[in-house]
């Protein structure tokens, strides 16, 4: 027993029992968990391995240098990047408002803005059509007063992707903001820093890992968006045919091309995850 134990009045416990208890918690990992874990790994990795094994390697270069493929890839990367930028510009303030300010109906607003996360993407596409389509609730006025028609344009692709992806960013930040430590900000305030200064030099850097992780999630979700895009933006090579649409349509006429395009998307996914290593992502989970 240590002096502290004596002072507090802890009963003397045999050291051996204490050691055994510690070993039970920190010791050998239960082997029985390896079985479902192994099944999970096999289930998730096998399809990706199948993509690599069955890829049309001899004709891969020809398929990938095809102008239509390059157009789809550039369009996908460009629209996903644009959607991420819009999501950050609009989503960060939204997350801050939801986390920090109190207003009636805050809970309802928080629920509503995260609906697209759970909503089936094609349902999102239908909803976007009804809102921003040529005869849509808002779209008809856009057409009438500004002569602007959103469907079937690259803008529509960005709108569809932002609709499904922004809530991911808001969710990621919401979680981080809930656990952020205000003491640093308070210390800065007592030292005389302005609100803007505190935000730029204390709050944002603390949020940076969560913001980055949220932005990556957002970008990945935007890149993979299919249902809302094909319903709202339509499908036309160069303007609205993103990679997932190109894969889906290639399946009908040229399965080899579909596999090759899928391989490209898989490579992009792996590259993104490798570049944003543990180091940065773990910070967001803290």
């Amino acid at each position: 027993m240590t002096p502290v134990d004596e002072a507090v009045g802890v009963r003397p416990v045999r050291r051996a029992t204490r050691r055994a208890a510690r070993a039970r918690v920190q010791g050998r990992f239960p082997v029985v968990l390896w079985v479902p874990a192994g099944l999970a790994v096999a289930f998730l990795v096998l399809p990706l391995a199948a993509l690599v094994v069955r890829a049309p390697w001899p004709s891969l270069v020809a398929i990938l240098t095809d102008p239509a493929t390059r157009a789809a890839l550039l369009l996908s990367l460009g629209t996903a990047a644009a959607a991420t930028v819009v999501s950050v510009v609009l989503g960060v303030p939204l997350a801050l408002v939801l986390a920090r300010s109190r207003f009636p109906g805050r809970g309802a607003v928080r629920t509503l803005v995260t609906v697209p996360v759970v909503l089936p993407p094609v349902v999102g596409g239908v909803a976007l059509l009804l809102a921003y389509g040529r005869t849509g609730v808002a779209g008809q006025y856009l057409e009438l007063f500004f002569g602007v028609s959103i469907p079937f344009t690259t803008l529509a692709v960005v709108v569809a992707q932002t609709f499904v992806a922004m809530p991911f960013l808001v969710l990621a930040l919401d979680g981080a903001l809930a656990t952020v430590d205000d003491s640093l900000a308070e210390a800065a305030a007592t030292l005389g820093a302005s609100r803007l200064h505190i935000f730029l030099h204390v709050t944002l850097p603390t949020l940076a890992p969560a913001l980055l992780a949220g932005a990556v999630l957002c970008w990945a979700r935007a890149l993979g968006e299919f249902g809302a895009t094909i319903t709202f933006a339509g499908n036309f090579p160069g303007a609205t045919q993103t990679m997932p649409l190109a894969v889906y349509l290639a399946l009908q006429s040229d399965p080899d091309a579909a596999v090759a395009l899928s391989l490209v998307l898989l490579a992009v996914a792996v590259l993104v995850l490798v570049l944003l290593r543990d180091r940065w992502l773990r910070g967001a989970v803290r």
Partner: protein
Amino acid sequence: MLGRSLLVRVACAGVGAGLLGGCSATGGPATETLTVLAAASLREPFAVLGEAFEDAHPGVDVRLSFAGSSELAQQVLAGAPADVFASASPATMQTVTDAGLAHDPVTFATNTLVVAVPAHGTGTPVTSVADLARPGVDVALCQAAVPCGAAAMEMLGRAGLTVEPVTLEPDVRAVLTKVRLGEVDAGVVYTTDVVSAGGDVTAVTVPDDVQVTVAYPVVALGEPTTAAADFVDLVLGPVGTGVLHDAGFGPP
């Protein structure tokens, strides 16, 4: 603790309901399932024929799946468990027969193209096929790999028109939907699709000299079951001919 026991009770109820639901609705002997893959434009007539078949063959449950013919052909090639395949073009049917998955398809109907325009559209009015090529007109077409897309391209080629569509949809019904919603000024669909859309769309006729006739073959896949062969007979027989005629299809 109350929460956990409630969860267990709900789970048991769910399993029980699932088991009950698994029994056939008639409570009779196990039903045979007949899976029919049909082109999107065959939605209404085949729904009617499916019901007629079920009435005449109690114990058979007809399951219909509609999509673009090329997508369905790929499903058959990938091993989808289907019994009957009805496509909107001999070309897509040929991909299935060439792979040895079906033999001796028979043409059971024909269809022609028409330009569909929204009945209450606010966009640019389209009154002839030539209008499709005018700048500022939003046109929806089917993807080239889908029969209606190939037929549309052929028709426009015959008319000597170069049309830049705003979207290439995966099947003819998706084109029709875009027109019904007023999102495009016009779409090239089948005559039968306009019939099915009711008052939402009006048709602009395609002149006979550029018209393209599309032939619909049907086949029972693989080693046909009796039910599959009977369904094909129903489609080819007087009942099928009548239903297809009422829907606006032409004779084979």
